[in-house]
């Protein structure tokens, strides 16, 4: 269970204070696939960063299970990011000079998993997301966008997290590949009871999720099921992120 209570994030800049996330509260039950939709600049990615402990909120609480991650020490935050969550990014963010296999092994290395064990598990995960043995030995630059995103999903699953945070996971993919990736995430949520929170501007994806939250100017405009996604207008300001490999 992911519970967010009165979450606020402000940024201070020379021109004043900007409130990116304003007093947001919601709950996502375990094993559900939730989508956060909204226009560019509505605070979606900031919210995702806060859920992933990449940034600290100005106020409010984020309960993952029984732990309030806003109160964790730096060392515990590292452990939280390593063991309890998995990230999937729009730009894949694979380490360019490592092979697909090595990229998947990386979080397990940080978690202290033995070499043989992490090698076997990485192969298993890559096979599960449809990466062939040949593709496993390739560096990201020699994989297609869809393949890279599959590798990124395998990497996110490496330490068997209970929460996967995906930032525009299909943003750089064509619609057919995007659909495959979404199906893959759905399958994960069902089979592993993994909670998935995906930020997206793709309403088609949002329609397929269990829960949808719409953000407007940092505030939760609406939350519920498919109705929101059906009534929401497509975000024409969203641009695909340039992928670096």
């Amino acid at each position: 269970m992911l519970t967010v209570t009165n979450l606020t994030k402000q940024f201070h800049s020379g021109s004043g204070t900007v409130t990116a996330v304003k007093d947001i509260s919601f709950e996502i039950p375990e094993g559900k696939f939730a989508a956060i939709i909204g226009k560019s600049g509505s605070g979606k990615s900031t919210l995702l960063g806060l859920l992933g402990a990449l940034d600290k909120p100005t106020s409010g609480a984020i309960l993952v299970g029984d732990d309030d991650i806003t109160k964790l020490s730096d060392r515990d935050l590292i452990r939280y990011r390593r063991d309890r969550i998995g990230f999937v990014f729009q730009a894949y963010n694979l380490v360019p000079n490592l092979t697909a296999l090595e990229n998947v092994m990386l979080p397990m290395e940080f978690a202290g998993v033995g070499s043989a064990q992490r090698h076997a598990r990485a192969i298993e995960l890559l096979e599960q997301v449809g990466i062939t043995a040949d593709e496993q030995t390739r560096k990201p630059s020699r994989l297609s966008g869809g393949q890279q995103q599959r590798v990124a999903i395998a990497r996110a699953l490496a330490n068997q997290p209970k929460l996967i945070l995906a930032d525009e996971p299909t943003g750089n993919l064509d619609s057919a590949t995007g659909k495959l990736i979404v199906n893959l995430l759905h399958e994960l949520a069902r089979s592993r009871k993994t909670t998935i929170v995906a930020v997206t501007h793709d309403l088609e994806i949002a329609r397929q999720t269990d829960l949808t939250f719409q953000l407007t100017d940092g505030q939760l405009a609406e939350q519920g099921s498919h109705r929101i996604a059906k009534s929401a207008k497509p975000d024409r300001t969203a641009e695909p992120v340039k992928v670096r490999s």
Partner: protein
Amino acid sequence: MSTVSRGVRNAFRNNIRSGGVTVILALSVGLALVMLLSLKTVQARITSVKANLGNTISISPAGFSNFSDANNALTTAQLDKVKQVPHVTKLVETLQDRLPTTGSSTPSFGRFADTGSNSTTSLTSPVKLNAGGNGGSGGGGGRVFIRGGGQLPAGFTPPVSVLGTTDPTSLSDQSITIKSGSAIDGSKDTSQALISTDMASKNNLKVGSTFQAYNATITVAGIFDSGSNGGQGNTVIFALPTIQRLSGQAGDVTSATATVDTVDNLASTTTAVQNALGSGNADVQNAQQQVTQAVQPLENIKTVSLYSLIGALVAGSVIIFLTMLMIVRERRREIGVLKAIGASNVTIAGQFVAEALTLTLAGAVVGVIGGLILSNPVLRLLVQNSTISSAGPGGGFGGGAGRGFARLLGVGGQSLQSLHAVVGYDILLYGLGAALLIAVLGSAVPAFLIAKVRPAEVMRGE
């Protein structure tokens, strides 16, 4: 794959940059190694020069020279004060005299010209001067001229040199080698003497044989090696009290040499000895100035080497620092990714330090090879430049430096040209240490910057 191996692989992620950094670091490390070798070699030579020459004080009666007519000998009683001066560890007192032999009474030899009836000996000098006569042929030696004009007669035999000393184990500051018999005690009046192998051979003397000197019978206690020095072969060594008694110069001393504990105390001890003896009674000189002159070129090289070594290390650190700074800035997003997937600051910093270390070691290997090849040519170049500048317009070391300094040439001057850098394991370890130092210094700030990178960087768009 471990943090270290990831760092090593990252070092070669951009081959052009890695190659460039390696070459520049190689120049830096090579220069540092060359300078370190020069520094060590020169320092060893300075230590050697100081150890060999630097810690003795010469004491002689005021205005005294070997051929001087005017002097008043020092006395053993006066020199006892020198023994009390702090830092004086040894005092060797000597009394010089000459014993005329057949043909040596003419011409005159300064104060020893008229040596009186006491100064006679049954010995014949093994040295023959002007052996070839006036323009004569054969025999060697050639024509020898004497001070004040004139010329020695053909086949002239010089007087026998007599040395009374408290240290009969050395002659002219050099240890003697006893070939047969035994040494004598320099502090006891025993009517015994040491003669050279040449003298023994010339006069058919063996250990236990006797000869006449100062109207007394002297026993040969030992025979020492004449060596290649003709003057040494013509010398008879007595204990100081013996020669003082036989020559009727009780208590007199013509020269003394004080040894000081370290060269660092030489100047102050020289002043103290001068004060103890009184400035009008004795000339007190030390080798300090001579040593200073002798090691000046070495000191110049040492200074150049030291500053160049520091400069090379700083340059290497700056190069690796700027490189790592550039790499860290370039990979902020990647650092954010690593943090987002659970890497600690220590792990990421370790990876970057390993990368810096790899680049530095690659540079160090090339630099060490280059440094080993270039160390001696560079050292020669430094010596050449240093000796030229030290010689100045006066024309080299010999110019006006005097007799003592001429002796130093063998150690501090000509030997400079033979300075040779020797590479030991310690130098290679220093090289490795320098590479480590460069890597650690150069990656310390980038490591700090890594810690400052927020994991949220990863959420930033390109």
